[in-house]
């Protein structure tokens, strides 16, 4: 069972600078060649100030959080079960976004193969003025019954 005291543990905001090259490489890795991620002119003609980032781009952001430390799980394996994003606006090349991470919930569930620990981790991205840009929510299964890999 995960430590309930982990709920609320958080990392301080960490600056992420959104670079055009990083957006391009991220979109390429997905195999998504929508010019809105590559072509400044195209993006402006589409009504944006500059190129935008794909919706899952926040997955590439760093935060100061060490999840295993936040959760106190040592080297047990973490399985990503669910992911959600809420967006206030698109993420643009040139954005400076401060990302912080907090443990929103931990709980225990009965699965087909025994008990599972579930952790819900929330990330929040804010611009330099403090305006919310996105929220991300990860649900992780912490392998409880198996030997550590």
């Amino acid at each position: 069972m995960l430590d309930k005291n982990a709920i609320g543990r958080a990392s301080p905001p960490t600056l992420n600078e959104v670079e055009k090259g990083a957006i391009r490489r991220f979109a390429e890795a997905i195999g998504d060649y929508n010019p809105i991620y590559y072509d400044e002119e195209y993006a402006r003609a589409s009504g944006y100030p500059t190129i935008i980032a794909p919706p899952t781009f926040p997955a590439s952001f760093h935060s100061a959080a060490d999840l295993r430390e936040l959760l106190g799980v040592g080297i047990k394996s973490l399985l990503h079960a669910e992911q959600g994003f809420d967006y206030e606006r698109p993420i643009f090349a040139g954005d400076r976004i401060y990302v912080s991470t907090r443990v929103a919930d931990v709980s225990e569930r009965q699965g087909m193969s025994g008990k599972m620990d579930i952790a819900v981790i929330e990330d929040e991205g804010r611009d330099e003025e403090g305006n919310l840009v996105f929220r991300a929510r990860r649900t992780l299964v912490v392998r409880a019954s198996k030997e550590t890999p």
Partner: protein
Amino acid sequence: MPARKLYFESIRVGDELPALAKAPVDRVQLSRYAGASGDYNPVHVDELYAKSVGMPSVYAPGMLVMGMLGQLISDWARGGQMRRYNVRFIKMVWPGDTVVCKGRVSNRHGTAGRYFVDIDLWAENQRGELVMKGGAQIQLFYSLEDENRQRSGQSPIVIEVPRESLAAAPATSTGGGSSEASAVDEEADERLTGASSKKTVPREKPAAKTATLPSAKKPKK
């Protein structure tokens, strides 16, 4: 020239998004995604490591597959603003697997000059097995005229559009990203244990691509 944009007025509940078949996943793509995302978890890039922890090979990070399904949305909803996007990872995607992304409009509504559509989303592998499912909410201009007005600083076109939903649409995609970890269940657990015996039949087909009204039936899963 930007592609033609999508406007709220032309979208109907039950509309299917054009399916997106991605190129087969290979290990080079897994390396590229690791580099681009900064996630170097060795189960995705180190074959020896993956085998040492009991996996048949490396496998794709869930976020890569979520990115593919995201492409389906952005390709379709050009000119729209994604407000919400949620998925559940159900089955692992292995090198050689082909991910096919699908979606369907499950809800539309508009109020106070803001117009939204909800989409049910899912991804299958080449065997038709469900690997991921989820939903998204997109905000759109009502029409080209609405966009032109707003871009020139005028007030939006205001048409009250009562909520129309697919009959018996599941609530999976409409929880505002804030539902508790309720959806973690046997399916995630199955993925956890690497079991692959449970075949998932491809999701139901909507009645017709041209379904115009909420009468479009959606059989329960």
